């Protein structure tokens, strides 16, 4: 009977992120010269989904109380790879898509293997592997470029509008949530990933599959990074090994995850929250555009908003009774 109270408590972070996003988006749209039109929504969606995919990738790892500083680089590597492989006939395109996704999965799995079996801190491991992945991307695309027979029909279909004006990229995002996130969240492995993030000792003592949970979380993180990389290719028709882009996406993904109510201490939050966090974070930048402010203000403005959002999360520290718990 009072189940709803608990359901609400469980989703509070996600709902808060949704609220932040909606408020910002409403302000954005109502001040946009063109108003609430299919084109405005499509542009916003296409900008938003890239970060949404990378933020989802980050969520898997952060839930296990780790952090993945290589997500942006997997994203870039897969972008470069896709610019060569997503070409030609439907069958060669399908093969190319598969190869790109598999590459992302392998990159993530390597992170996972090193973290789990090397017993190393995720932060250093992923700095190192991230550099490797970026190095590979640079070898693939020393200069930005594209392939002549790039399958731009597929790209246009996935970044355009569906009948009724619904942005196709949003639908793609929805499908990815449905076939990757939902099963993960409801599987034994997914629950073990949450448990590892919450208390690894307790999870081990309860006989949960702690190692495979971490491995799967890292591998899925790589896969989501690859999906993000594919979409980047669909938007640009080309591949570019941009260090700045990789780093930006990595750092923004962490910001989006926190905005979306996922705890950096692990064990708490959802990828859906992270998606709204990513969309909200993107909208912050767009707000400057509709208010006609100098784009130079964007980093500063984004930083202030992010800082405020994070401070909300640390309010609980005022309740700590044993000061040693502050360091735990």
């Amino acid at each position, binding site marked *: 009977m*009072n*189940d709803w109270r*608990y*359901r609400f*408590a*469980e989703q509070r972070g996600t709902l808060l992120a949704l609220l932040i996003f909606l408020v910002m988006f409403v302000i954005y749209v109502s001040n946009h010269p063109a108003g609430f039109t299919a084109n405005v929504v499509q542009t916003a969606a296409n900008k938003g989904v890239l970060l949404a995919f990378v933020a989802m990738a980050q969520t898997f790892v952060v839930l296990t109380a780790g952090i993945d500083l290589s997500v942006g680089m997997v994203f870039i590597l897969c972008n470069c790879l896709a610019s060569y492989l997503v070409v030609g006939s439907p069958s060669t395109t399908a093969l190319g898509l598969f190869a790109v996704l598999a590459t992302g999965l392998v990159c993530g799995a390597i992170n996972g293997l090193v973290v789990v079996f090397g017993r190393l801190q995720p932060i250093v491991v992923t700095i190192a592997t991230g550099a490797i992945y970026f190095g590979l991307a640079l070898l693939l695309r020393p200069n930005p470029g594209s392939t002549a027979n790039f399958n731009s029909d597929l790209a246009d279909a996935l970044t355009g509008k569906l009948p009724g004006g619904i942005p196709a990229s949003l639908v793609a995002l929805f499908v990815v949530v449905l076939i990757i996130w939902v*099963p993960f969240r*409801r*599987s*034994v492995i997914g*629950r073990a990933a*949450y*448990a590892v*993030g*919450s*208390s690894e*000792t*307790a*999870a*081990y*003592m*309860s*006989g*949960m599959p702690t190692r495979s949970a971490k491995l799967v979380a890292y591998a899925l993180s790589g896969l989501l990074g690859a999906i993000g990389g594919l979409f980047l290719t669909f938007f640009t028709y080309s591949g570019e090994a941009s260090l700045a882009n990789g780093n930006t996406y990595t750092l923004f993904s962490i910001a989006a995850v926190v905005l979306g109510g996922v705890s950096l201490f692990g*064990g*708490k939050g959802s990828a859906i929250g992270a998606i709204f966090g990513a969309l909200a974070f993107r909208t912050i930048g767009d707000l400057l555009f509709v208010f006609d402010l100098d784009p130079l203000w964007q980093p500063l403005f984004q930083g202030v908003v992010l800082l405020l959002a994070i401070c909300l999360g640390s309010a609980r520290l005022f309740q*700590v*009774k*044993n*000061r*040693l718990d502050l360091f735990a």
Partner: protein
Amino acid sequence: MDDVVPLFRMEGISKRYGGVKALENASLTVQAARVHAILGENGAGKSTLIKIMSGVVAPDAGRMLLEGQSVQFANPAAANAAGIVCIFQELSLIPDLTVADNIVVSNPPTRFGMIDRRAQRRIAEEALARAGGEDIHPMALVKDLPLSRRQIIEIAKALARKPRLLILDEATSALTAADVSKVFDVLRRLRAEGLALLFISHRMHEIAEIADDCTIFRNGRNVATYRAGSKTDNEVVELMIGREYSHVFPPKKPLPPSDQPPVLDVRNLSWTQRLKDVSLTARAGEVVGLGGLDGQGQRELLLALFGVLRGASGEVLIDGKPTRIGSPRVAKSRKIGMALIPEDRKTEGLMLPMSVRDNLSFAALGNLSHAGVVDQRAERAAVDEMIRLLAIRTDGIDVPAGSLSGGNQQKLVIAKWLMVSPRIILLNDPTRGIDVGTKEEIYALLRKLADSGAAIVLYSTEYDELVGLCDRVIVLYDGAIKRTLVGSEITERALIGSALNIATDDREPGAKPVVEA
């Protein structure tokens, strides 16, 4: 009894942790449909025994038989699969998951490869009902529930795994009397269903109420097994102590009466539910011990005095003057002159990768520097002096603290605080995991510090230390002072008796004990 194959038997089990023997040639036999209680002092090997049975650690030697078949457990999951389920003293619940998630944690019901939440809910509700926790909502997060409710969930979680041998390690220590009687009803029903129950508790009256058989452990060995009720509490306590004094303690010197106010005077100190109206005094030259079972508020008391705990109420008088100690920084200031030798030297006492010199000077840097710059020569002299005084064995003062032996590391922590010449020294179990020789040196040092005018408050989990070192011992139980022992009253028997919250008769061994309600 020989013609029945016991449900579980372990023989010749030994386990060492580094140089410390936790178990040596221990054995235990558990029968189905009986409650078997394990008794023993802190560190008698009970926890290690349970960890071996439930697959958390592997024994160095010995074998385990389940219904006559030899078994080995690589991990807790393997033990669970064999039907041995343990409810650990440190809770094994996952704080951010819901009650229902936790109950089915090791084997959730699945449908098409995904967790079937409806079935999970049903299992959880059933298990909660069996464990006497019908009032707990299955969707509540574990971290939002109080300790006593969590303990009920632990039991429900264990029951959901369909155990044949259920181990309860101090599983009732956080429960109220009403909850305990509920749990006991559950245990009796489980016993009637044919489960074997292994029950570890420090509460003698609980053991008297529920146990069928008892085994006493001492120094890593099982020393006696008997039918419950066939020995008096005094006999049991004697079997639990049973050892000679193995350490040499420096002689105590009685303090002359003095009209000076005590250096440390604590009045009605309380903090959340863990400390209740604790009052104590310590005079210059006095060693005051804190006794009692592990986790009865001793650590919290020391932390509260040192200004670590927020929202502690009560009054602290230093030299008779009311003083507010808001943080360790204030506590160590020259006016108060307090030092706390923490329990865990590796995390709270030392920065292991940093040099011996740096570690020794941290607390005293204020005295060794001028205008914010450290006077290297003064530092060097002070550090050398300390190393000589405490006979710390180290390869010079620039090697990392982590390269020293455990005993020398502990000396380093003590030396670090002696650098500020404290007047009040709080020690939290300072000899844990240290070799006997270094222990003796630390005992002599503590007495010397007291003789030179320091007031010492010492918490120790080893009763013979309290007996050998302290002028006065305050025994805590559940956050409150249960008894104060002075001078010749301080005996192991009195300490254990008051720690277990039973009254033992000090003069007449074997006399009928009085059990407190």
